[in-house]
């Protein structure tokens, strides 16, 4: 498979997942800020922006709630916005159009078309978030139903899993940092769609530590960090053509495996003492793993399109 195509697949997976996770995060954060009278909105907005890695406007003006959410949803010039993520997914898909199944291309393209048609902008925010989640499900479902499980598929799932681990880590960091008397964990669990499965797993006794444990370590829940990392490792192992007898040759696999093992074999009490720090390390691991994948598999593609960090 061409490196360039592989890279496109990898980024389709990442961008679609990013669009979905961003909409999930924004949706519940907005509900929380609107519904809970004890939430300090200004601090909440700042935390949200910094956790998403978004730029914080430095014009000194206070951040408005709706303004910020609108920007994070609709603004194509904001790198972390949903609009950007969908744009990125479509751009990537365009570069791999001949290898993508027609259906796959169509669902990605029509999502992008709808979004840039202006109708998306006029949607009310909660509806827009829901729509994005549904479109992500359609894209993922179409991929699942129409793509052969070849290398391309492995890259797609690899990208999705890496992004998911990264986003869940960001979410966990938000709830560890959210100020205010009420625990932010129910909100975080809801953002991951994990609230009900968590309640069932822990028989309705929610404590902060258990919520963190669930989102980080649960092996069955698809959005937990450990689940996502395991999935990414599997993809990397599948991509490795020959069986490995000794250790792991692939740098990305080594990075992910080490981080996962560290999460799983350390006591949860140890991890939660510095949750934001841990999550930050985790995000950096994901970034390094992504770089390692790029180095190893997509080297040519980088040489052809990389713009030397001009976007930053």
């Amino acid at each position, binding site marked *: 498979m061409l490196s360039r195509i592989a890279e496109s697949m990898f980024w389709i997976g990442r961008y679609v997942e990013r669009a979905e996770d961003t909409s999930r995060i924004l949706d519940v954060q907005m509900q929380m800020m609107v519904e809970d009278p004890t939430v300090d909105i200004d601090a909440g907005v700042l935390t949200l922006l910094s956790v998403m890695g978004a730029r914080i406007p430095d014009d000194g003006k206070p951040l408005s709630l709706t303004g910020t959410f609108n920007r994070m949803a609709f603004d194509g010039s904001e*790198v972390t916005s949903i609009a950007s993520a969908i744009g990125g997914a479509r751009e990537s898909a365009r570069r791999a159009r001949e290898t993508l199944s027609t259906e796959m291309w169509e669902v990605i393209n029509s999502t992008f078309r709808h979004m840039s048609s202006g109708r998306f902008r006029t949607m009310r925010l909660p509806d827009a978030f829901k729509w994005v989640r549904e479109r992500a499900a359609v894209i993922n479902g179409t991929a699942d139903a129409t793509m052969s499980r070849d290398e391309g598929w492995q890259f797609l799932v690899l990208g999705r899993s890496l992004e998911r681990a990264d986003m869940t880590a960001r979410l966990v960091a938000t709830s560890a940092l959210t100020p205010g008397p009420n625990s932010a964990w129910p909100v975080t669990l809801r953002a991951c769609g994990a609230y009900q499965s968590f309640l069932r797993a822990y028989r309705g006794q929610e404590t902060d530590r258990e919520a963190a444990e669930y989102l980080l370590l649960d092996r069955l829940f698809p959005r937990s960090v450990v689940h996502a990392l395991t999935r990414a490792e599997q993809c990397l192992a599948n991509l490795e053509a020959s069986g490995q007898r000794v250790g792991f040759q692939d740098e990305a696999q080594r990075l992910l495996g080490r981080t996962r093992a560290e999460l799983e074999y350390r006591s949860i009490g140890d991890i939660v003492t510095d949750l934001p720090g841990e999550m930050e390390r985790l995000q950096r691991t994901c970034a390094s793993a992504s*770089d390692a994948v790029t180095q190893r598999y997509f080297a040519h593609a980088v040489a052809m399109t990389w713009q030397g960090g001009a976007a930053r």
Partner: protein
Amino acid sequence: MELFEDYQPGRRGAYDEMFQDGRLRGPYQGLARSFAEVTGPEVRARAEALAASYLEQGVTFDIGGEERAFPLDIMPRVIEQDAWNTIDRGVQQRVRTLELFLDDVYDAGRVFDDEVVPRRVVTTSSHFHRVAAGIESPNGVRVHVAGIDLIRDDNGDFRVLEDNVRVPSGVSYVMTNRRAISAALSEAFASHRIRPVQSYPRKLLAALRASAPAGVDDPTVVVLTPGVFNGAYFEHALLARTMGIELVEGRDLVCRRGRVMMRTTSGLEQVHVIYRRVDDEFLDPVHFRADSMLGCPGLMNAARAGNVTIANAVGNGVADDKLVYTYLPDLIRYYLDEEPILANVDTWRCGEPDHREEVLDRLDELVLKPVDGSGGKGIVIGPDASRAELDELRAKVVADPRAWIAQPVVQLSTVPTLIDGRMRPRHVDLRPFAVNDGSKVWVLPGGLTRVALPEGELIVNSSRGGGSKDTWVMAGGRVSAPSAAAPPVATVDLHSPPPETGPALESRFAQQEQQQQQRAQHRSPRAAGAAGAAGEVPTC
């Protein structure tokens, strides 16, 4: 304020909660401002979206076998802090009294000996179950969940219309209404400080766990539903889901050696607490209706053996009987030695000869209610009834006076409600929900406001075409400054790396940048040489 044109509050002397002599009342000022900022068509569009989203979510109610979206009005109802404090205390007082009364009725019966309530009032009630005598839950709670129906009279005072301590329903709509309205009116929400309602399932689960049989550390709690054909099935499912516990039907349960077990894929598993949404009569065919398929044979024996707690307790119906209701103020004084905080609506008991005489004389100006009825069934409103209906009623009352009570026509308060695109006054009541965990009675801030949608209609039950409103209990001004305990800005200790971007987006942003730079006629050498910089490894 196009929406409020021609709004005529306070007809027939009813208390309008938003307007007083054409002026806004205090609690509604914020809301009126928010509505003024949105155009009429926009509000109507949002109201339509609300109904559509309820159908989609399956927030429905079953009327005569037809599944309909539970009507939710876009205009919330606001209850000011002071009024709410009174309700809160009043409901707690009431629930504590009902608990003591039930304990007494199914035990020594002090209340009869002291002649506060005649024994026959209780023993003639069809909800009095001798089999429930002597069954006591480990923490002494019988009324785990109560719904106290309140109305607001002509003077704006809240009064109790009815107590529900059997299986009060409607709390799920409180939660779904809040979520739906917060999405539909997010501007208004952000400018109010509304006490949240989402903690209800947690409180309920804690109360249910607290009532588990002694010695069980980690009790298994289940919700027992009559099944998918029940009108309130949506609520049963929502409660089970939000509490993270199993929703069982009678056929999932089986009693073995005085224990209740549920059939699971890994064999039988013991159940310790059953939050049942099945009426007493259907709960256990051994003791009650033998043809019931909804319950589980042997349940009562298991409860008597102390191996399972049934919540709410069996036999609670004697306490929310409309006849016992009339004695509640006396019962509050008798058990708690307190004055009632929330007054009853004046009531005549047709079972007492002098009361009956007065009622029969004034049949055309009173409201008559069957003692055993619920859901607004059988209620006759005198002034609205025809000659024939009144004659029929008279015959019924004379034949069985114990079965009837009479009340003056109380004009329920009105709140603006969106009807055919305009705000119109419609009558509302309020059902706050209370959860008793044995140490404290907790009242959910808000509760279910039901609204009668036809003009002038006073019966609000959803089975009679009533709708609902989101109910906001205010908690004062919104906090804007961070509290001293919390770190002022969280960014200090957070250094999340920005998300990486792939080649597609990189080049898109680079392209944008280049275009901007071209436009500015100001091409920096670095951007011009972007292609030359290829191969640089990104630093994240």
